[in-house]
C-alpha cells in the first residue's frame, strides 16, 4: 500500500505511539482489503465507551488508555491516547443514568460508561450516544469521506446523504479518529457506488412498516450488493429511510442503495447504474411482502406480549410524537412494558414538547443512549416482545432468547395496552 510522507511519519511514531499504532492497524487493514492507499476523512463515528466485561477488565488493568489501545487500536500494550485528530462522535453505547430503576443493567456499567464519556470527551469526542448521529448534528455533506460504523448509520450516510463511508468497525474508527485516515476502498470509489440490482416495487409501499418489509426483503436478495428501487412507493421521509436501510443491513449487508428520484446519486435509473447495463428487475410484490412479514414473525408463537420496544434505529421526534398520541389517555396492561429508544438530544426536545409526559402517564418510558440489543437488557422475565423495527425483530430473539412479533407502531402500542399481539398483514 502506498503511504504519503505524512502517513509514513505517523507510522514511524512522529506523532506518538498511539498514532503509530493507529497507522499500523490501518496498514494491516488496508492490506487485508487490497486497498492501494488511504483517504483523508474529517468525520468519524465510532464507539469507545460501550461497556463490556472485557472492557471493564482492561479499564481496571490500565484505565481507558488501555481499553482504547487494545480495542480501538488493536494494540498489544497500553498507550497514552492523544486528542482526536478529526471530528469524532460516539455512537450508541450502553444504558445511561436515565435507565436506572427501569432497565436491568449493571450499575457498574453505567458508572464505567460515565467514566468513559469523560475520557473521550476530554479528547474531543462528541458524545452523541446514538445510532442515528445524522439526526442530532452530525450530517456529512454529499461526497464527504467519512469513517463510520453502525450499519444502519453507514447505509443512511451513503445512500440518503451521499457521503462516502464503508461499514467500519471499532478498531478502524479508533485508528481513523487519531489519524484522519481510512483505507480508500469500496464505497469511497465512484464505481462501487453504482447499482447492481434493479428492484421493482409492485405492491404499494407507503407506511413505515412497509419500508421495513421492503428493506428486509431486498437485503435478503442482494446481500452486500447495491439495490436500485423503482415502482409503487410513496415519497419516504427520514423515518422511513432509517427503517428501510436498517432492515436491509440486517437481512443482508447493504451499505448503499438508490431510490430513483429520491436519493441523491439516482436522479434516473440510468444514473444509478452508470455505465452498467440495467439488469432485469427483481420484483417486490404481494408474495415477497408476505414472505418478509412471515420471516420477521417466525420467532413468535405466544400472543401474550410482555414487552414492546420502539425506536430502532433511535426514534425521530415524529415517532416519539406518534407514540405519545397513540398512548394519550390509555394505560399499559399490567405486566407489560413499553420503551421507546431515542437520541438523548431528541429526548430533551420530546420532554420539552410534552410527549414524554404523555408516554410516562401511560406507563411507558423514553430511554436514551442504547437499546436492548446493544446492552442485552430487557425487562426482567420478558418472554415475548413486539416491535415496529425489522432490525430488532431480526436480532433480539437471538440476543435475548425471546419471541418476537413485528408489526406497525399502532399494533405495538395496542399490544402494550392490551398485553396481546393482534397484528396482521392487511
Amino acid at each position, binding site marked *: 500500500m502506498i503511504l504519503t510522507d505524512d502517513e509514513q511519519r505517523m507510522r514511524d511514531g512522529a506523532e506518538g505511539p498511539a498514532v503509530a499504532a493507529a497507522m499500523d492497524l490501518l496498514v*494491516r487493514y488496508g492490506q*487485508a482489503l487490497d486497498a492501494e492507499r488511504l483517504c483523508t476523512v474529517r468525520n468519524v463515528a465510532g464507539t469507545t465507551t460501550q461497556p463490556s*466485561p472485557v472492557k471493564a477488565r482492561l479499564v481496571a488493568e490500565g484505565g481507558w488508555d488501555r481499553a482504547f489501545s487494545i480495542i480501538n487500536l488493536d494494540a498489544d500494550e497500553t498507550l497514552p491516547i492523544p486528542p482526536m485528530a478529526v471530528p469524532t462522535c460516539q455512537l450508541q453505547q450502553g444504558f445511561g443514568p436515565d435507565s436506572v430503576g427501569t432497565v436491568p443493567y449493571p450499575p457498574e456499567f453505567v458508572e464505567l460508561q460515565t467514566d468513559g464519556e469523560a475520557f473521550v470527551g476530554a479528547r474531543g469526542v462528541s458524545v452523541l450516544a446514538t445510532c442515528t448521529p445524522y439526526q442530532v448534528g452530525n450530517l456529512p455533506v454529499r461526497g464527504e469521506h467519512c469513517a463510520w460504523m453502525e450499519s444502519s448509520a453507514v447505509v443512511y450516510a451513503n445512500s440518503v446523504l451521499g457521503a462516502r463511508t*464503508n461499514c467500519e*468497525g471499532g478498531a478502524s474508527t479508533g485508528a481513523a479518529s487519531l489519524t484522519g485516515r481510512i483505507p480508500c476502498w*469500496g464505497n469511497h470509489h465512484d464505481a462501487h457506488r453504482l447499482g447492481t440490482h434493479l428492484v421493482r416495487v409492485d405492491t404499494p409501499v407507503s407506511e413505515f412498516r412497509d419500508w421495513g418489509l421492503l428493506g428486509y426483503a431486498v437485503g435478503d436478495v442482494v446481500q452486500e450488493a447495491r439495490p436500485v428501487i423503482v415502482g409503487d412507493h410513496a415519497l419516504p421521509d427520514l423515518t422511513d429511510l432509517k427503517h428501510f436501510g436498517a432492515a436491509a443491513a440486517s437481512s443482508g*449487508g447493504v451499505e448503499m442503495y438508490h431510490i430513483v428520484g429520491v436519493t441523491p446519486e439516482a436522479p434516473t435509473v440510468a444514473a444509478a447504474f452508470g455505465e452498467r447495463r440495467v439488469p432485469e428487475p427483481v420484483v417486490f410484490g404481494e408474495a415477497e411482502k408476505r414472505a418478509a412479514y412471515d420471516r420477521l414473525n417466525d420467532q413468535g408463537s405466544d400472543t401474550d406480549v410482555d414487552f414492546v420496544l420502539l425506536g430502532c434505529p433511535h426514534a425521530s421526534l415524529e415517532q416519539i410524537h406518534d407514540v405519545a398520541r397513540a398512548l394519550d389517555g390509555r394505560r399499559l396492561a399490567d405486566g407489560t412494558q413499553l420503551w421507546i429508544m431515542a437520541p438523548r438530544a431528541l429526548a430533551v426536545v420530546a420532554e420539552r414538547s410534552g410527549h414524554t409526559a404523555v408516554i410516562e402517564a401511560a406507563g411507558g418510558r423514553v430511554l436514551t443512549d442504547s437499546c436492548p440489543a446493544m446492552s442485552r437488557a430487557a425487562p426482567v422475565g420478558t418472554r415475548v416482545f413486539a416491535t415496529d423495527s425489522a432490525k430488532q425483530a431480526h*436480532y433480539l430473539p*437471538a440476543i435475548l432468547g425471546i419471541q418476537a412479533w413485528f408489526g406497525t407502531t399502532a399494533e405495538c402500542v395496542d399490544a402494550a395496552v392490551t398485553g396481546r399481539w393482534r397484528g396482521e398483514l392487511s
Partner: protein
Amino acid sequence: MTGLRPAPARVVLRGRAVVPGVVTGEVLVSPETISGWGGIDPATGTITEARHPLAGVCFTGRILVFPGAKGSSGWSGFFQTTRLLGTAPIGMVFAVTTTKAALGAVVTRVPALADLDDDPVAVLRTGDRVRLDATAGVVELLEREGER
C-alpha cells in the same frame, strides 16, 4: 462408509491473503453468511443467530469457512473479543471480501484467505482437515471428513 476408494484428486484452492500466516486444522463450514454482533457469543465461541443453520455450533479452535460477513459493524469487535477471551477460530476462509470480514480477520489475528478461485463453502466440508497457508495464498485439503 470408509471402504477402499481411489485417492481423490488433490484439492487446493487459491486466493488472496487477507491476514498472512499458516495454520493446520479442522474446518467448520458455514453455508450462510455470519453475523458478528448479535450472531455469535464471544464468551463461548458459538454461533447464536436462531435462524442460522449453525446455531449453537462452536467455532473455537477451528478454521471457519464462510461465504462472508453480514449485519452489524460490530462484526470485527465481536471477533476481536473472541481472541481476547481465547475462543477464536484459528483461521478464516471466506468467499466475499467486505470491510467487516477483512477487519474482523485482522483484529482476530488469524491467517485468513479470501477471493478464492473456487467457492470454499461448496468445496470444503465441516470436519475436513486442511492446511491454510494464507501467506502463499492457498488452502489445501489434507483429509476429507469421514475418509480417514
